[in-house]
Structure formats: C-alpha cells, structure tokens
C-alpha cells in the first residue's frame, strides 16, 4: 500500500471515528405536559442540525420527580438530561449533582433569560438548569361580574380590595363565589398558595437561624385573613380544592376571581373549554397594605445535566437548542405564537407577535415582580418563593398544609394549627441538623 493510500485511509478512519464519537443518543427524562410533548414532536430539527438522536422518557410530574431524584441520588446514570423544577435545582446544584451551565455560546444569549428565572435555577450565582418555560401567579377575574358589582380592578390591587370585591361579587343563589383559591393539602398545592399569601403579609417560613416563624403575628394575620375571606366568599369545601378544581369552577363561571398560575390564563381564555372566555381580565397578585412583597410565586420547568454523564457536550447542545430563541420561533412557525413556551426569555416579551397574546404582559409583570433570592420582607436563609429550597421542605410543608387545611374545614382554630406547624417544623429542622 502506498504511503498516500495509507494516509488517506487513516484520515478517513479518523473522520469516521470522530463522527461516530460526536453522534450521541441522548436519554431525556421529561414531564408529560403540553409544551414538553410539543418539543418531542420537533426533535427531528435537533437531530438534523447536530446528528444526535434523542430517546424520551415521559412521565407524570410526581413520578418524574421521584424517578429522577432516586436516579441522581443513587448515581444511577439512566438519563443524560433531566427535567427538573426550581425546587430541585439549587439543592442538587449545591450537592454537586449537576453540570454547571456556564459556558453556553454567545448566540444562545444567556443574559436574555429572565433574571428571576436565572436566580431560581442557580446556586451561588452559577446556573445549573436552563428554563424551558416559567410561570408566576396572578389574578384572573370576571370583568362582567366586576362591572356588575360597580368596581374596577386596579392593576396592582391589595388584599383588602380583593376581599371587598369578592364579597360584592358573591351570589350564593346563582352559585357564584367571589373568589376561588387553593386550600388542598400538599406542599405544591395549598401549601404553595398560603406561603405566597403569608409572604405578602410580611411573614416568612424561617428566620436566619432556621427557626420556624409560625409563632409570629404575620402568619396569624395571613391565615386568619385567608380563612375569613374564603368563608365569606369562597366555594363550599375549598379545603379540598387545588389547581384543577379551581380551574373547573372558573371555567364554569362559578368564580368571580381566581389567583393562580399564569399558565392557567390560556385555559380560561380558550372558548373551547371555558364558558367565560371572553370576559376574563388579569391583574397582579395582591399584597397587604404597606407590604412591598406580592403574593406571586415563581416556577420553571428546566433542563439540567446530571454530573458524571458521558455525553455532557451533546447534552449541552440539546439544552441550548431546546431553550434557545430559535426554538421559540420554531414552535411559533409550527403551532402559532400562543403556544410557545412562555416565561423564560426577555426577548419573547419584546416580540410584537407575542405582545398580541392577551395575557402576555401580565405574565411578564408577574414574573418580574417575583424574586426567589429575596422572597420575603424580612431576610431568610433560603432561595425560593412558594417553597424553601432545602431537601426537607416538601415533607414539612405538606404536613403544615394539612394542619392549615383542617382550619379551612373548620376542624381546628388558626392558633391551634399555627402551634402545631411551629412544633412540627422545628422538630423536623432539628432532626435534619439545622438547629
């Protein structure tokens, strides 16, 4: 064999091998909601661009959370990319379980990601997960009922106004409740809502030494206010109502107001599902008079890479693709602007096409009003608004919210529930070695 032939063969082999090394098959765990399913349908675009193939493991939210947590804690290595939320990211980042996402390309424009999202998905200033979409909470209200009550919704109302408006809109004979809010036990259901409500009354979960704060007057004020307002103007049995129950009630025209996830805006304004689609208005989540923090939360479903994966580079390429500006345009071209993943990038809200979506601006304003690194009036040692990003929180908050739900159902007083919450939180924090 001549020297040239040998050289050519060697070069060809090197090319083939390097090509083989670059074309990876990525295994991605994700949640089974609409935006993620849509992404699966568009995966071919990623494969065409990079040569990498993708294998999806699509799971229901609770199952996904348990599956990825077990996998990453036990270093199972089943996934190259995981879909996680704002609760997990700072904890896992602190544990060194995630690959830092600090070297994205210039075109990706990491500064375009909304600062609140970056803050909630970071630990010590390093981004550990890239937001696929994000949400906050806001007021959705019936413009017709508001008008009939002779009131006008301010853009940034207070709780006192909300309570008065709720009472004015309530018409028990016509099955209309002034306000529908979550009372269902569970850290991500009623627990999340009462936590942001408490924030907006100046309360906090822990002081800087991780002592529970349920014995403070702000918590009592918030819980008493919530319970009284709901018994005046809320639906019967709200103690078992969560997101889905309230969504149903609102869509059936049985709620004057509903304060919940911004993502619900597209469901209540969709005439196929909602009987009140053409009379829904939006406003910022309320605050108590004299308190700067509003009752709005912040959440993102984000993509992260578990540390120790063999396919880190390909995984990063995928995350860049799925959370880029180009991806948003790809969805808009295929499915229309109302269906693009919201709440992650500033540029989306500057896009004239997206500005026409009726809830776009209020969603952005709500997200911007939320600051996970600085969630309460008084200082706290944790990141997160409707949760504290520590591993013990989900367990503690579920039990605390169970005590609160018992108040909503009239089974115990506000004082009893707060005393139990204080005791069980401090016990758990002591057991975990915080105090």
């Amino acid at each position, binding site marked *: 064999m001549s020297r040239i032939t040998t050289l050519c063969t060697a070069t060809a082999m090197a090319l083939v091998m390097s090509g083989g090394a670059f074309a990876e098959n990525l295994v991605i765990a994700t949640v089974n909601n609409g935006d993620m399913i849509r992404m699966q349908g568009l995966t071919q675009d990623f494969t065409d661009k990079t040569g990498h193939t993708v294998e999806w493991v699509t799971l229901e939210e609770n199952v996904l959370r*348990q599956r990825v*947590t*077990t996998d990453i*804690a*036990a270093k199972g290595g089943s996934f190259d990319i995981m879909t996680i939320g704002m609760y997990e990211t700072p*904890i896992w980042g602190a*544990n060194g379980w995630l690959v830092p996402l600090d070297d994205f390309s210039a075109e990706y424009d990491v500064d375009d990601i909304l600062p609140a999202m970056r803050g909630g998905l970071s630990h010590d200033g390093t981004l550990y997960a890239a937001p696929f979409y994000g949400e906050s909470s806001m007021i959705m209200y019936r413009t017709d009922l508001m008008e009939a009550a002779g009131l006008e919704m301010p853009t940034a109302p207070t709780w006192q106004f909300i309570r008065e408006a709720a009472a004015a809109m309530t018409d028990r004979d016509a*099955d209309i409740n002034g306000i529908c809010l979550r009372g*269902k*036990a*569970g*850290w991500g*259901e009623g627990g999340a809502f009462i936590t942001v409500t408490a924030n907006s009354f100046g309360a906090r979960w822990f002081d800087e030494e991780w002592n529970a704060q349920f014995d403070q007057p702000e918590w009592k004020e918030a819980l008493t206010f919530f319970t009284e307002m709901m018994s005046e103007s809320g*639906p*019967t*049995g709200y*103690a*078992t109502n969560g997101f889905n*129950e309230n969504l*149903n*009630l609102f869509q*059936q025209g*049985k709620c004057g107001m509903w304060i919940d996830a911004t993502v619900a805006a597209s469901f209540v304004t969709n005439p196929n599902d909602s009987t009140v689609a053409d009379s829904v208005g939006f406003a910022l989540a309320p605050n108590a008079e004299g308190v700067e923090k509003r009752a709005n939360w912040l959440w993102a479903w984000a993509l992260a890479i578990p540390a120790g994966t063999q396919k880190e580079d390909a995984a990063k390429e995928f995350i860049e693709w799925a959370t880029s500006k180009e991806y948003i345009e790809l969805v808009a071209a295929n499915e229309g602007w109302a269906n693009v993943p919201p709440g992650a990038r500033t540029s989306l809200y500057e896009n004239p096409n997206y500005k026409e979506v009726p809830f776009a601006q209020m969603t952005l304003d709500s997200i911007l009003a939320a600051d996970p690194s600085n969630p309460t009036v008084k200082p706290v040692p944790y990141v997160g608004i409707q949760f504290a990003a520590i*591993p*013990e929180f*989900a*367990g*503690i908050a*579920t*039990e605390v*919210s*169970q005590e609160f*739900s*018992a108040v*909503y*159902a*009239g*089974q115990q007083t506000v004082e009893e529930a707060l005393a*139990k919450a204080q*005791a*069980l939180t401090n*016990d*758990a924090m002591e*057991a*975990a070695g915080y105090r």
Partner: protein
Amino acid sequence: MATQHSRSAARLMMAPAVVLLLGWMLVPLIMTLTFSFKQYLPLRGGDLGWVGFDNYVRFVSSSAFWPSVVATLTIVGGVLIITVVLGILLAILLNQPMWGQGIVRILVIAPFFVMPTVSALVWKNMFMDPVNGLFAHLWKFFGAEPVAWLSEASMPSIVMIVSWQWLPFATLILLTAIQSLDSEQLEAAEMDGAPPIKRFGYIILPHLGRAITIVILIQTIFLLAVFAEIFVTTGGAFGTRTLTYLIYQRVLESQNVGLGSAGGVYAIILANIVAIFLMRIVGKNLDA
C-alpha cells in the same frame, strides 16, 4: 412410593422456584430492615451510616404516629363492618329468584373491577363535590346546605368509598356460601314454624361463618394498605393519614428512607398482630 432418586430430582426441580420465591420476599424485607437502622437521606448524600434504633424511636415518638394507627384501624374496622353486614343482606337478596338476576348480579359485582384511583376520582368529583357533585344537587333540591364531604366528614367518606369497592367481593363470597346451603334444612325449619329471623340466626348465619371469616381475613390484609383513595381525595389531611400514608410521606415527600423503613417494619408488625388476633378469634371457624 417415591424413591431417594425421585425425591432428590423433585427437590432439584423445585429449587429455582423456591429460590425465586424466597428472594422475592426476603430481598425487600432485608433491605427494609437494613435501611431502618441507617440514616439514609438521598438528598443529603445518601447513606450517612448506622444509627441503631433512632429511626424507630423517632417514628413512634412523632406526633403523627398514633393518629395514623387509629386512622388505619378505623378504616379497616369501618369497612369490615359495612361490607360484612351489607354483604350478607345483598347475598340473601341476590339469592332470591328475581327477574334479570344475571344482570343485577353483574351490576353488584362491577365496582370491584374499577381501579381504586378511578373510583376515588369518580366519588370525589361526581358524587361528593360540594359544588358540582350529585349529593350537593340532591341536598340543594331538598333545600339543605351541601356538605363538604371530604373535609367535614373525611373519614366516613373514605370508609364509604372503600366499602363500595370491597362490597362486591364480600357479596360474591357470601353469595357462593349461601348457595351451598341445603334448602331442605330451611324448608324443614319453616315447616316447624321457625320465623324468618330465627331461620337466619340459627341456620343461615352459622352456615356463613366460614365465608365471613375468609372475607374478614382477606379484606383486612388489603385494607391495611389502603392508599390510592386517600391520596386522591384528601391527601392525608383531616385525620385520614393512615400508617401506609405516613410511610409514603416519610420516604417520598420527606426523602428520609431510614425513617420510612422503620415505619415499614412497624407496619409489618402491626399487620402480623392483627393477623394473629384475627386467626385466634375468628380463625377457629375455619377448623369447624
């Protein structure tokens, strides 16, 4: 008569099945026992070493423990009483010659084939919902204030849902038992002038003894582990947190595998105490 060789061959052939079954039961049991003596926190670095009986002490001294045992026993007791009493009545009713007997029987048995999650959702949203539920409309029709079943009467509601699911099982077993009753015996009692109540008390009920025992034993085993109905309806709130639910919360929500495993061991002990108790008290019927 089996020879030495054939016995050895039989043992050899059975060995895989025996090993598999033993492994099937022993591996999880040993893992539960091991974890229960460890501080195992997946989100805080995993295995943090042996801690002796700490988890056991912490599990029983938690304020949630005794209420959860009481909740578990209330559900088991409530459902057993309802299903056995109604099961006997339904079995007697279904045993009567009637028009469309086959269809009626299928309808009565149907709930047993509905998944627990589905039936809990149906009860929660279609019947017990205080705004849209059937009961709420019924209450309003008669001018009464609708009841928020799952929060105001949470335990009776869950007992009702679970009973609805298990009633077909009890009815089916008891119906089979009634059908095996010698009709001549009943006719003789009738001719001797025994009224229906006495015929039931002295002939039918003793005849059903063994079937009732089976119903109680099998249902108890399954009812101790009721989970989906609580998860879907109340999420463990309003005093409906059973021992199984508490263990779920400790392991999956609090991410404390050690503590949850200690709870699991307590649950095994509780199930065995209940089983032994039942065997002693009602199991005698099985020997008769």
